[in-house]
């Protein structure tokens, strides 16, 4: 390294602290309001003992877990075929998947609503999981296939010699070896399904089915915070927002390295 001058380093540190603090102001504002009198920290207790909260968490957990399993499963199987097997129309099929990466969610609003209603899956978990997974599968297939392309083909030969079928080679060799990229798939699918607002909005009706993302908005509506008119009473709103955001925040802070790595690898590849 070249000799940096000391005052510049102090300036950099100062600038970083100032910018980060300014960017954190909205969160500090919410944190401050969340313990506002008269409730104080009791606001959190009141939200935690609210009968609806466990149900919101449960709904989001079921939807996310289902979406992750279905996405990772379908995408891994397809990626294995694209990466390690020889078959006609391979490139055409791969190209078809690539093209769908360009289809906007907006285009899906009407057909998905009509389709899910027609399948009698409106207001069910499965009715939400299927389209969420369908939308994630093309991207993740390509991501996993890229990773498997880097695994030596000799491993396939060895698997065959040891008597593995194609599925055996997938299940015993390629799937376990692709765990690093599976972590990326899990993180990205978790973020995408847990935070999705549009699909639950159009595919769920009853409040007891609501995911965390929808619950935040109905909580704010109850507080009158989203209206330009009428009484606003924040009350437990901010405590509720923090508790609703808590699962993603905790998972993020625990698996930070994987999170940031996943998000950047998704963008750079």
């Amino acid at each position, binding site marked *: *390294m*070249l000799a940096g001058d000391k005052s510049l*380093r102090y300036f950099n540190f100062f*600038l*970083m602290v100032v*910018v*980060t603090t300014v*960017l954190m102001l*909205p*969160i500090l504002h919410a944190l401050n309001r969340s313990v506002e009198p008269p409730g104080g920290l009791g606001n959190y207790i009141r939200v935690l003992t609210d009968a609806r909260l466990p149900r919101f968490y449960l709904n989001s957990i079921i939807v996310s877990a289902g979406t992750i399993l279905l996405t990772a*499963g*379908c995408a891994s*199987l*397809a990626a294995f*075929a694209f990466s390690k*097997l*020889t*078959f006609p129309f391979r490139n055409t*099929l791969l190209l078809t998947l690539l093209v*769908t990466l*360009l*289809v*906007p*969610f*907006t*285009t899906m*609003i*009407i*057909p998905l609503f009509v*389709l899910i209603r027609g399948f009698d899956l409106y207001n069910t978990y499965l009715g939400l999981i*299927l*389209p969420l*997974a*369908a*939308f994630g599968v*093309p991207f993740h*297939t390509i991501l996993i296939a890229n990773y498997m392309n880097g695994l030596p083909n000799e491993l396939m*030969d060895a698997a065959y010699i040891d008597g593995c079928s*194609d599925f055996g080679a997938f299940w015993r060799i390629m799937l376990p070896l692709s765990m690093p990229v599976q972590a990326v798939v899990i993180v990205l699918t978790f973020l995408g399904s847990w*935070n999705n*607002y*549009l699909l639950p909005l*159009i595919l769920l009706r009853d409040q007891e089915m609501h995911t965390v*993302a*929808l619950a*935040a908005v109905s909580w*704010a509506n109850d507080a009158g*915070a*989203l209206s*330009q008119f009428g009484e*606003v009473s*924040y009350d437990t709103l901010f405590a509720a*927002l923090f508790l609703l*955001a808590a699962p993603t*925040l905790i998972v*993020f802070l625990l698996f930070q390295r994987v*999170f*940031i790595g996943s998000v950047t690898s998704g*963008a*750079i590849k």
Partner: protein
Amino acid sequence: MLGRRRNKVKWGAYLFLLPAFTLFAVFVAYPIGFNGYLSFHNWNGVSDTWQWVGLEHFERMFGERTIRLSLRNASFFFIGHLVNMAIALLLAVLLNNPIPGRNLARTLIFIPFVVAGSIVAVTWQTIYDPNLGPLNAILRGVGLDSLAQNWLADPKLAIWSIVVVGIWAGLGFNLVVYLASLQSIDQSLRDAARVDGAGRLQVFRFLTFPLLRNTHLVLIMLGIIGAVQGFEVPFIMTGGGPYGATTTLAIEVYKNVFNFSEFGYGAAVSVFTMVILVMLILLQRFLLREQRID
């Protein structure tokens, strides 16, 4: 022979593709066709009959004020995204220096990106609240009463208030992408340039910035996709108002379907969205295609 079995054509491969392509066919391919067909019809969402109307919905759409506003707003979101990229790049250059605590700063700045957009929207709604919100309170506190505004109710201001939310929520993402790219650039290149007498600004302008070209392009493409598809933040904060000032194509689709039961017209708007997006991405690829240096 080794590899012979591997290279044999395997019809069984289609079994591996079956689950993925079934999902894809039912929930992606079929909906696109359904949408296109529906856009030439009138349908209220429940009746058994679709009434053919030809291009009527598309003609109506091009005369609609809300559609023009949606496109204008998409361009404002994109401008916001460019500002976002600029801030993110400067921050990334800053955090690429060995400053104590820089990992903590990166983590904190990334947090808004992992929080659900709906929670972000609600939080900012309370910040902009004209009476109770901290933004106006701060402005009044420092004696700038005249700058205190009704941030979301003023038709001119509302869209920019929402653009700012988008910048705040997306900054962490752009930052980590730029940081990762910066770290992949060989530090010795910059050191060599410095030894040769280039100033810090010159190194940035003539070395770092051009070397990040692919990252700029990816972020611009993601920005186009995000700008055209904008939905939840304006939908939650203003419902697209006041008077359509913050509306987006997705909000128009939603409203026509779920408020007015105009499924055919909604389908036409969503077909239009897809066409616009594909055209913009092709245009971007064409305009910013790899320049050959001979």
